[in-house]
């Protein structure tokens, strides 16, 4: 296939003046090496190629996609999408195309990661497995390098590229699992041995855990748990579509969070990954969502922006017309507390490594249920006293982060990736929260 921008131009040429059109072309490689019970059991690589076309004929909108870039395939893509649009009713919410504008000068790219061979990923896996020693281990090492080109008939032209790498695994005793993970735009930043050692330490220290009565406890939540919370705040709260439909908690200008919290969507942040524009070709910029506890902004694509009289914030996602806008690079500002200082400030509470299977019960109140995983410890008077078995929680995330509810913010800002995250990933520090509602334990 010729270069991605060249494919964009060939598609736009075929549309000509018959419609407003925007094209996104993605190319690159995604690879993931997976291990379990101490050996590599799944090892894959995909030569990514995607062509996405959205067009509007007098406000009649249709989308199409293909993965073949020969002339016949592009002719078919354009004609079938035009035909489909012609049969549609006029879309009253069609916001038109993004105007030409420059994107931030962001290039989250590393050649060594983009061209990583399977042997390089296997080396990291081997180091993790060796560090686990006699403990069983499982996890993965992934690399990806994606180039994205965007063009529309309003004159917008953007090209971006991004690499990312993750090492993520668990070590297992007979009664416990311990996890560790690291993500970066550079494979060279990963360390399978160090990651494996941390997983082993967590597994051993959470072995032979005992039950704990459900109830309200202080918690120290890891960056992994906190980014899980940010996902719910983003999708069901800060999403302009959720606000438009009255399903969101977010009220801009109100002190809805503890004043120790500041949250931004920021592709320019040093830890961020991803490209600096969205699926509609709108450049991303740093967007404050929470400033010192005050809800400061919402994320928009062009449709939700038009509906609410705002401007797109560059948060459209492919095929997201019915879903709304999603931030790709949330960064929760770190504090100054070390992990030991956070634990030392707990009167009676729990340290939680991971959340698992979190699902929303009510989007308006952000009540979410889920479980703990990969290590939970009881802390009394600032000291870890024993591991506990996994617990179920049912907790409003907005309340848990509300005014006065955050007792400490860690200094450990951590990028949390997962699988493929070429579109972005969230970063957060650990948090010490005053209360978390655990509603069940291993007995149910």
């Amino acid at each position: 296939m010729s270069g991605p921008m060249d494919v964009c131009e060939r598609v736009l040429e075929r549309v000509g003046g018959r419609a407003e059109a925007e094209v996104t072309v993605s190319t690159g490689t995604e690879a993931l090496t997976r291990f379990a019970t101490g050996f590599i059991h799944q090892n894959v690589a995909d030569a990514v190629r995607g062509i996405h076309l959205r067009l509007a004929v007098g406000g009649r909108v249709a989308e199409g996609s293909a993965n073949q870039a020969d002339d016949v395939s592009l002719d078919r893509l354009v004609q079938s999408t035009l035909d489909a649009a012609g049969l549609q009713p006029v879309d009253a919410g069609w916001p038109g195309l993004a105007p030409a504008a420059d994107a931030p000068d962001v290039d989250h790219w590393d050649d060594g990661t983009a061209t990583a061979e399977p042997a390089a990923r296997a080396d990291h896996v081997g180091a993790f497995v060796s560090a686990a020693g006699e403990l069983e281990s499982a996890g993965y090492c992934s690399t990806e390098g994606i180039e994205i080109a965007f063009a529309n008939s309003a004159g917008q032209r953007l090209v971006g590229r991004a690499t990312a790498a993750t090492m993520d695994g668990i070590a297992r005793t007979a009664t416990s699992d311990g996890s560790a993970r690291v993500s970066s735009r550079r494979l060279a930043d990963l360390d399978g041995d160090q990651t494996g050692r941390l997983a082993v330490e967590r597994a051993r220290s959470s072995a032979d855990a005992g039950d704990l009565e459900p109830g309200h406890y202080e918690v120290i939540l890891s960056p992994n748990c906190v980014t899980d919370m940010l996902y719910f705040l983003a999708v069901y709260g800060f999403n302009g579509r959720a606000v438009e439909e009255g399903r969101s908690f977010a009220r801009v200008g109100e002190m809805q969070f503890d004043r120790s919290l500041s949250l931004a969507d920021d592709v320019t942040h040093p830890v961020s990954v991803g490209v600096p524009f969205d699926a509609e070709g709108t450049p991303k910029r740093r967007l404050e969502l929470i400033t010192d506890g005050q809800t400061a902004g919402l994320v928009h694509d062009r449709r939700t922006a038009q509906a609410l009289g705002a401007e797109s914030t560059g948060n459209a996602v492919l095929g997201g017309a019915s879903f709304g806008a999603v931030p790709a690079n949330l960064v929760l500002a770190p504090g100054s507390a070390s992990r030991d200082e956070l634990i030392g400030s707990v009167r009676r509470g729990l340290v939680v490594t991971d959340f698992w299977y979190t699902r929303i019960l009510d989007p308006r109140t952000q009540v979410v249920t889920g479980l703990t995983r990969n290590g939970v410890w009881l802390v009394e008077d600032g000291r870890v006293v024993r591991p506990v078995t996994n617990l179920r929680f049912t907790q409003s995330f907005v309340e848990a982060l509300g005014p006065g509810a955050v007792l400490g913010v860690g200094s450990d800002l951590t990028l949390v990736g997962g699988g493929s995250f070429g579109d972005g990933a969230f970063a957060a520090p650990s948090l010490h929260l005053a209360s978390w509602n655990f509603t069940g334990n291993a007995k149910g």
Partner: protein
Amino acid sequence: MFEFADAAVEAAIAAGARYADARVMDRRHESMSARNGEVEGLTQEGSVGLGVRALIGSGWGFYSTADLTTDAARAAGAQAAAIARASASVPGADLELTPIEARQDHWSNAVGEDPLSVPLAEKGDMLVSVTRTMREHGADTANAGYHIWDTTKWLVSSEGHRIDQHIVECGASMDATANGENETQRRSYPGIRGQYGTRGWELIRELDLPGNAARIAEEARALLTAPACPSRDATDLIIGSEQMALQIHESVGHAVELDRILGWEAAFAGTSWLDLSQLGTLRFGSDLMNITADATLPGALGSFGYDDEGTPAHPVDIVRDGIWVGVLSGRDSAALAGLDSSGGAVRGDGYNRLPMVRMTNVGLLPGTSSLDEMIAATDDGMLMDTNRSWSIDDKRLNFQFGCEIGWEIKDGKRGRMVKNPTYTGIGPKFWQSLDMLGNESELTYWGTPNCGKGQPGQIGHTGHPAVPCRFRGVRVGVRS
């Protein structure tokens, strides 16, 4: 397309693989969505490509490409072997494959009305109409949509398989949301995930979305003023068939996936509470519990002719009279577990995903009771239906499921509607409390089009035959 798969397999074997297979897959997907009386999205997607899998020692290598030329296919085969060789640098015991007959065959599912041939205008009119109706009957937000998949795939293996299949799937969904002061309530039809099958557009006509739009909107509005589900440590709980499909999927289907049991999913999807040493003796549920995994059910979403390893579709007993007797497996996992043959449950999500153990149609065999009989036989309990939230631990034991709607049952009669109903349990204890089972007339082949698994992520299409059931002594509501 067979020629590209042939070239990839030959190249993988030439590069040192002791086994290789390749799939060329051509998939078209069409979806349309409407909101509040307006069509909001129409997408037509096409993808075609080749994925090749090579086995060296204990390790698989998989490589996929959208380049469909003989040279590109050969390069893909060689690349798959190179990846497999890298896998072997962190080795386990050599993987074996259970034997199967190498078939040369063609299979396609029955389709009454080609869903891609139904005019877009007709489809759009239906979605616009039902969302308008929901708005007119109390919904603040009304959504409706459909999905169609038309997939052709060609499988070749180094053992001589040569199979092509054409599978058409479609289905539809709609939902109404009503906003209250500090809450939202939602009702869906036919269920939270809609209803899908390996059928044509006739399935969507049979669903009768227009005939149910007003009802669900009114129910969503009524839920805002309904009392909340009470919190009780133990009550009799009747669960409708849509929620039972989810219950089966989460607490049985995933638990009996052999790759999970073997620890292959330990770091991500999790493991299973089931221990292979107890296969054939462990009591999973009450005597009424009979579960099969059957990819031969006509029209069910998890049906096919052959899985992606070329194993013919066939029914597999999973739980018989309450005893755990079977697993969902593929050729490598079955061999490692010491089973005689693959369960034929290996599928990949598109040409660019490694085939892995996925549910087929994992469902409950019906019993003898009607829903009305269950209600009449319950003095003090709850009825819940339509999944709203789902959460279960990484061993598939400890679950909490929420439903969209519930009713109190008093003295054998359906009483007040309640909102935010939830129930909690531990898998085997819960299933052993099953004491009434819906009959054949209550049976629905529910289809789940969005089962996530694997890294990189894959979306699976699974089927779940289900009937209403009654369970005793279930915790309902959320502890404060």
